[in-house]
């Protein structure tokens, strides 16, 4: 169920992005969000979220939270994640993905994906990453990390692997687009999406 909700949120966020939500009125954004969520969450075999889960597998909690944050912003709610933190997250994703995916898919004997089934070194590395974000006052990053870990603990997705709660290929694509399209850090305040 969590995986379907994550996929539905991501789908709605993509729909809003493709529709150019900044140019729309608040009412239009809300209608668009509702429509996208309804279409995504129709029962199987009609729901788009189910169909995409079959195609892409489940998205990570990170992707889901980013989508929810984007939907909140687009629907006139205050931004809970400054742009510089979003960009920082994207940079981290882009630093991890180029070695993580090839190795996990068999490029060498080392298998970083196996760490996600439970490994003190991996959990410690994540803790250090979180502490670095904490020291930098990047609280949204800290909370995204913690929520992913808690979701893993309660196995809210199908996967038994912590990586799947933190990272997914769609998130890598999103990070790439974000970093390429906005190479310079954007201002963290002001853009609340409540212009409609």
């Amino acid at each position, binding site marked *: 169920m969590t995986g*379907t909700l994550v996929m539905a949120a991501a789908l709605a966020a993509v729909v809003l992005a493709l529709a150019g939500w900044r140019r729309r009125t608040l009412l239009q954004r809300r209608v668009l969000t509702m429509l996208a969520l309804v279409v995504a969450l129709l029962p*199987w*075999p009609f729901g788009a979220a*189910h*169909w995409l*889960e*079959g*195609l*892409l*597998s*489940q998205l990570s909690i990170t992707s889901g939270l980013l989508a929810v944050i984007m939907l909140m912003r687009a629907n006139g709610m205050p931004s809970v994640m400054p742009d510089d933190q979003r960009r920082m997250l994207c940079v981290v994703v882009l630093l991890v993905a180029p070695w*993580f*995916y*090839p190795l*996990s*898919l*068999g*490029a*060498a*004997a080392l*298998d970083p*994906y*196996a760490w*996600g*089934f*439970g*490994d*003190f070194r*991996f*959990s*410690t590395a*994540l*803790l250090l990453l*979180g*502490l670095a974000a*904490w020291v930098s*006052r990047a*609280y949204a990053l*800290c*909370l995204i*990390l*913690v929520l*992913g*870990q*808690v979701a*893993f*603990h309660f196995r809210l*997705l*199908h*996967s*038994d*692997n*912590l*990586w*799947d709660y933190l*990272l*997914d*290929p769609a998130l890598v694509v999103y990070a790439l687009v974000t970093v390429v399209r906005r190479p310079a850090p954007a201002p963290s305040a002001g853009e609340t999406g409540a212009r409609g």
Partner: protein
Amino acid sequence: MSGRDKAFHLMVGLLLVLGYFASTPAHIWQPDNAVLVPPEAGQAGPRPGQPWTLRAASDAITPLVHAGSMVELPDGRLRAFWFAGRREGGPDVGIHSAVFDPATGQWSPEQRLFDRHRVAQRFGYTIRKLGNALPVMSADGRMRLFVVAVSFGGWAASRLVVAESTDLGESWVFTDDLVLSPFLDLSYLVKTPPVRYSDGTIGLPVYHEFAGKFGELLRLTPDNRIIDRYRIGHGRAAIQPLVLVRDDHRAVAFLRNETRDRAGRVFFSASEDAGRSWAPLEASEVPGPSAALGGISLGPDHWLLGANFNAYERDELHVVESRDAGASWQVIRTLADRETHRLKPLQPEAFRELLAQELKQFVGIADPATVLNRAAMQKCTPMGCEFQYDYPFVLRTRNGDIHVLYTWNKSLIAHAYWQAGGEAQ
């Protein structure tokens, strides 16, 4: 920083510590001292020239059958599984099953257990086709069936789903969708039987064949939680690992060779730490085309394989044995040998004639004409007909009997049966 900001800062710091503990599953707080459960010692194996009985587990009710597997039931019977339909990868393919009773020497009628729609309904996403099914019997009498399911594309886009049965395989409930890959959950398949650990977990051999081609041993709890996985090879070299246990710490793996520059030999790897790490792949003394293997361990250095045992084709299939830890192998039973027709495709009439002779060696083929029609349909093209005997699955039952299932020209799930200390029925 205001007092409120400071409190929030500290709270987030505490949450990070909470996250650390949440990310460390319970099993890693316990030392993993589990060892492999070795095969029962002192079992004799078949000798060359001893009788084997040939039967068919399938009834030729579908044009295609493939990838037989089996498990021993608590009462000594066997339940076999395979996939069947009009063609491999077709939308009508379902998982079929039958039960063999050694007391009567008969297979039950073939039954269709489920198809892709059942899987799709359970997990709520599209399933285009089903493939290999592998049964595992638990100590509590539950049976698990690991099934290859594909949502889109070919076998390289496979996933593994798990069904459970509490009535020895008569009815099934899908329970789990195993996520094994970080990239769209692609592409894991299963073919060979698991090894067992002393803590009740199993090591399920799986393989990847999308970006790379390599094997892994997946450590699974009885309730299908993945607690670790161990890679056997890497790159694009070998798939379908067959893991044989030598003793509580040592195991070997034979893998189907998928290389072009090093083709012709089955790959081999060894583990000295109960399967947790594996030596680099090396060519074994077993010749093999790119084809699946079956096998069992009869002792630390005494292994039995079902293998094509030639470097080129699947037109011969043998039971071969090594008593010196793989240094040398001898054929102890030839299940099929059409090497003389290799590269010389036959016309359908001649092909059917030769197959009809083979079928006469089988016990209890009810409708040989249908089987021959199926085989001709599967294996004949305008260029001629070719023989195919592959996907052996070997099982030793508790009483020492040895059973081999294999695909006979994609038309039958054939069953070769050797009885320990007795004549074949």
